[in-house]
């Protein structure tokens, strides 16, 4: 068990290493000279040519744009290991510090959204499974398909219009306070809910069809206890989905963060695009890659620890 985890961990390290090369290469392939972009943006009136050339040379040295690609990558990777993500072109601050300021807001939003999603998923999924085949079940299924077809930003805009502007229940601002959390979290939670409902429903149905449940029921155990027992296994089987949802919330909340002015990573990345702030974007991409990989690793470890049986089954399903 320990060896398997170690192996997975090493594989993960390789993945991160390869991802960093991909990012580095992408930025070097991009058109335009970052040093020129950086100077060009700040100059409102052009300087004479000599001053400009001198400034450009200084800037290139400062930004580590001299030397071969290989040595540039090495020095870049070296600074990454020291948690140094470079300096933002736009704000001139350390990217690591800027991301550090925004990470809590993103995790807070993603975590709360996840709770809402899991809550809705468990409740509705269980109801739907227990009443399989009834009108309620059909309605839930229909609702899920419909909800999964609506773009997230449309839901967000409608909620914002209704709750913030018409009913004035929600204050628009820029802080990551708890009073501002519920609406974006609700939106994100709603967006992830259909998937959760379906998985819970499908898994609970298959659990209820298992021999042990049938025999327990025939031995006269109360439905509630049996379902409760089955739900534990269902919960286990949702770990993968929870991991995926968390990934989606951390990376894909850009639109929601933008609509609700939630000062998280997504907003940071959008500003980075706007200002052509390569280091900021690079930092953002690296942090998301790290979280994705970290979440995968955690999910894996949880499975190994919780139930080796399931691990084997999952592995087979995924890799055969």
């Amino acid at each position, binding site marked *: 068990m320990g060896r398997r985890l170690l192996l997975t961990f090493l*594989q993960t390290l*390789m*993945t*991160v290493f*390869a*991802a960093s090369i*991909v*990012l580095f290469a*992408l*930025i070097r*392939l*991009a*058109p335009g000279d970052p040093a020129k972009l950086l100077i060009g943006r700040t100059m409102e009136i052009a300087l004479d040519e000599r001053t400009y050339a001198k400034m450009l040379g200084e800037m290139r040295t400062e930004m580590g744009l001299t030397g071969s690609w290989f040595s540039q990558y090495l020095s870049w990777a070296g600074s990454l290991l020291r948690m140094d993500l470079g300096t933002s072109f736009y704000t001139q601050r350390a990217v690591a510090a800027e991301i550090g300021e925004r990470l809590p807001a993103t995790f807070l939003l993603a975590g709360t959204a996840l709770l809402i999603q899991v809550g809705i998923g468990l409740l509705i999924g269980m109801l739907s499974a227990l009443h399989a*085949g009834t009108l309620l079940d059909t309605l839930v299924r229909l609702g899920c*398909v*419909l909800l*999964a*077809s*609506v*773009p*997230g*930003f*449309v839901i967000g*805009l409608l909620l914002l*219009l209704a709750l913030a*502007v018409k009913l004035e229940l929600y204050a628009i601002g820029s802080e990551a306070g708890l009073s501002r959390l519920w609406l974006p979290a609700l939106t994100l939670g709603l967006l992830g809910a259909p998937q959760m409902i379906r998985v819970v429903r*499908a898994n609970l149905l298959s659990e209820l069809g298992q021999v042990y449940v049938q025999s327990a029921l025939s031995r006269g155990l109360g439905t509630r206890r049996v379902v409760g027992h089955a739900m534990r296994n269902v919960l286990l089987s949702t770990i993968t989905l929870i991991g995926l949802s968390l*990934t*989606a919330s951390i*990376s*894909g909340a*850009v*639109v929601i963060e*933008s609509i609700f002015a939630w000062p998280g990573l997504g907003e940071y*990345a*959008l500003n*980075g*695009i706007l200002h*052509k702030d*390569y280091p900021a*974007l690079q930092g*953002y*991409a690296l942090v*998301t*890659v790290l979280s*994705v*990989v970290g979440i995968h690793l955690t999910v894996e470890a949880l499975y190994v620890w919780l139930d080796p049986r399931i691990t084997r089954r999952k592995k087979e*399903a*995924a*890799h*055969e």
Partner: protein
Amino acid sequence: MNSRRGSHTLVFGMVMLVLLAVPIFAAPWLSLDDPLAMNAGARLARPSLEHPLGTDRFGRDLLTRTLHGGRTTLLSCGLALGSALAVGMLLGALAGMFHGSWFDIVLMRIIDVLLAFPFMVFAMVIAALFGTSLFHLLLAVVILWWVNFARLTRSIVLNTRKSTSVDAAFVLGISPLRILLKELLPQAFGPVLVLATFELGHLILAIAALSFLGLGSQPPSPEWGSMLADGRAHFMTTPHVLLGPALFIVLTVLAFNCIGEGLRDRIDPYEKHRI
């Protein structure tokens, strides 16, 4: 019961898709307004007989623009996903066929790396570095999206290869390529088709979201996501500007989701492949 419901969903989705696709693809031949023709006198007009969905801030007819936008959205998403599907199936099939070979191992590691990049993040990085355009977004789609198809195809090919008929074919000396094309790949078509249907829905939503952020299609050619982004400013005073594109996005994705559900119930009733 299951299969009957599957048929209903499938038929419903198909009918809806046809109802949407016919006007969208016939738009150039219908006698509609020019999607680019401006009319400063009829800015943000409410729906009327002349303009069934109203007009936008330039006085352009929204029905025409929505239909033309649908062509852009459907064609580009379909093309990108089709390319991703072709690449994914090919690589996945080869990896499954030569399970355990260096090719398989390298491919799986590449897939691991690509899986570490969420699509939104990758698309944003591409847009920031190479410029915002629909083409760059679609490039990002092809680069990342083949992975899902490759993994599915690989697992199906691997499963099927274990079956006796394939072993028998090997014994009879039939070339591996022939086995792959005749025996193994056909097994994958069904599940891949189901997956593709769902992914097309996801893709339309993802592209709409990125266009909404201003990272996708550029003016003046209409596209649903950017039409929504444009209309957002007039949402509160003239909400009808969002009606056309929003409704078409929802209905199209719904159609694909229904078709996907129906197909899955038919092809893979026990959700064996966890599509």
